């Protein structure tokens, strides 16, 4: 069977899987960004009561494997009365894991904003919330966008693990097709190429575009 016949026969399943992977990617990215922002800001707090939970969260999620966290959320949480559907468990695990890495980027980004900016906002008697939202965060965002590009690629790769709790994503479909046709090179090779296209032709160019737009918005380029 030629590769084109293979694609014609199984292309639909690859497409279905890709759509699920895309869904997992966007939902876990949204969750990761929200968690990163909250945990990153909490870690910068002077109040130990606010700082400690963020530090514990970040260390736990960065200190263990995504796969361990995924299995824990899917198989162990139900014992505590929290049962998540597999699709939800998938993007929650990926989002929480990458959110912990993102929190460090947010912290680093905020700390890289020059001190004079804080003082100037203070001198204009801005409220702390307004100062953070209008002055500090926009500049921090520009500083941390390049590493976020890498993190989103890691996040995309992380979503492949949800196939192990039987979410029918791209990885899962590739495994299924491999199991029924035994054409491993075609099945896994096609999935590899789709992930590569997703990362290099969608995620990376989008982040580059966002970098230039944001830099222009705060007048840096």
């Amino acid at each position, binding site marked *: 069977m030629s590769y084109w016949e293979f694609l014609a026969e199984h292309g639909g399943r690859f497409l279905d899987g890709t759509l699920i992977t895309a869904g997992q990617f966007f939902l876990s990215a949204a969750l990761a960004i929200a968690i990163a922002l909250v945990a990153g800001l909490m870690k910068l707090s002077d109040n130990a009561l606010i700082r400690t939970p963020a530090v514990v969260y970040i260390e736990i999620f960065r200190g263990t*494997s995504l796969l361990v966290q995924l299995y824990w959320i899917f198989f162990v949480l139900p014992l505590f009365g929290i049962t998540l559907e597999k699709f939800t468990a998938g993007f929650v695990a990926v989002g929480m894991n990458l959110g912990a890495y993102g929190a460090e980027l947010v912290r680093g980004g905020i700390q890289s904003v020059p001190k004079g900016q804080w003082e100037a906002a203070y001198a204009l008697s801005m409220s702390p919330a307004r100062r953070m939202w209008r002055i500090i965060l926009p500049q921090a965002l520009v500083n941390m966008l390049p590493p976020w590009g890498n993190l989103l690629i890691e996040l995309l790769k992380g979503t492949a693990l949800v196939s192990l709790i039987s979410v029918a994503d791209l990885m899962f479909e590739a495994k299924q097709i491999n199991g029924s046709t035994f054409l491993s090179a075609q099945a896994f090779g096609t999935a590899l190429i789709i992930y590569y296209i997703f990362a290099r032709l969608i995620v990376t160019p989008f982040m580059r575009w966002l970098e230039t737009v944001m830099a222009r918005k705060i007048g840096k380029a």
Partner: protein
Amino acid sequence: MFDWKWDFAFEILPRLGWATLNTLMAAGGGYAIAIVLGLVLALAQRTPLRLLTFVVREFVEFIRSTPLVLQIFFVFYVAPQFGIRLSPWTSGMIAIGLHYAAYLSEVYRGGIESVPKGQWEACRSLSMSTRDTYVRVIIPQALPPALAGMGNYLVGIFKDTPMLSVIGVAELMHAANAIGSEHYRFLEPYTLVGLIFLAISLPSAALIRVFETWVRKKLGLS
């Protein structure tokens, strides 16, 4: 804690302990491959052969932007299609070693590029061979800035070893899965695996930072 059975936890601890050794071996083996292969990939991008540079560059990007778990499956299932039978351990080591070699090649590249241009020129004017230039001048200076990245990826490779369980490498996650399905209890094995990972990765991250400052001091940088 809710329904936590201490006697069961203690009963399975020795088994998880042995599996931890396998996990450490897998991480160590994969890292050894990655360190050497990463250098090859980094140096291949510095040759004057445009085509080789381009191919290696794209290869590194490809490895870095596709999921490790898929690469593990690929190596494990595709090799037999071409008549090569690989054990789970061998294919796991190849996949994880290659994956991290791509990451380490970027770390090396960054390190080498951080060496000032004058150092290269000085080597040339002393008519040093390419080999001597790298071994005696460039690499010793490229190493300290690369150490932080190398350390991070050592911890990274350790945390990625659970993925090897998907092809049946008997590491921690594999043992936890087996225990869980034998006893129909997942709370203790999965929680213990998480704790073991924390107990190893947090101190090693701290140790690596200490080692890094020690090397910098030893080489007279800061």
